[in-house]
């Protein structure tokens, strides 16, 4: 069996385990924690994810699909971020679990603090921080808000599992503390119906 065949088998097994967890518990915090532990265990099998099998970013960030389920199911990706790659605070509108294979990515978590009364305006405050590095991961619910930044001198390589595939993502809400604003990207959910 080739490395890619072993990887594909391991990814399929992960998704079977994930569905077993959510079928039993739903998408509770404990279920997401259990999924995170599964993803961390998979990310720890570095031999399944040799960097030679995955193109490095042309710029500083790239996602490689590992397994995208049919029927509007989950999406599992290998992500590569080079030092300095960042994402402002955002709400995916769908749950997400990350686990590191190599490198360090800082995840900060926020809560919205404004009254949601002025369209386009928002304020957030940081409530937690997690360093995602080998042996660790993070899990977030549908409307949690997080930011990311790749720290250190080496690429952050990790696994990311989303409730929906990236091509079928809901609208993402982006918060800009610097501008006191919120902006959204268009939903891709229509693709789920195609």
């Amino acid at each position: 069996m080739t490395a890619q065949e072993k990887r594909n088998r391991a990814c399929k097994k992960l998704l079977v385990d994930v569905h077993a967890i959510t079928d039993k518990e739903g998408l509770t915090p404990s279920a997401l924690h259990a999924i995170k532990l599964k993803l961390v265990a998979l990310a720890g099998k570095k031999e399944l994810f040799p960097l030679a099998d995955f193109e490095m970013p042309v710029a500083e960030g790239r996602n490689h699909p590992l397994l995208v389920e049919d029927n509007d199911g989950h999406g599992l990706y290998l992500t590569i971020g080079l030092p300095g790659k960042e994402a402002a605070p955002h709400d995916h509108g769908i749950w997400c679990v990350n686990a590191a294979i190599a490198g360090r990515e800082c995840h900060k978590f926020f809560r919205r603090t404004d009254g949601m009364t002025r369209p386009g305006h928002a304020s957030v405050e940081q409530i937690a921080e997690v360093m995602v590095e080998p042996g660790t991961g993070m899990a977030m619910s549908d409307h949690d808000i997080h930011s990311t930044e790749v720290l250190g001198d080496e690429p952050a390589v990790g696994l990311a599992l989303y409730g929906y595939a990236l091509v079928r993502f809901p609208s993402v809400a982006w918060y800009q503390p610097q501008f006191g604003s919120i902006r959204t990207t268009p939903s891709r959910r229509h693709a789920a119906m195609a």
Partner: protein
Amino acid sequence: MARVKSHRLTIANTRQTIDCGTSQTILEAAIMAGIDYPYACATGNCGTCTSHLDAGTVSLLPRSDASLSQQQAKAGQTLACRARPRSDLTVTWLSRGGG
């Protein structure tokens, strides 16, 4: 010789010319000047602020591959949220996305 601390930035859509610091992005300068420049992530991930660089040169902060393809870059496009001026600039935003 004194170092240049800012450049002139012309936004063709609104026909406005403003100062843009060398450590500022096009988007930051525009928003601070009260210009309703389209954006969403402001960190080089979504491509909402994709703009055509009509004149001048920029340096780009880290971004995702998906936010600006190599073809777009070759065609003179840039990301306002990631681009810092290296000369006086003229830009045109290409979409009215975001919310």
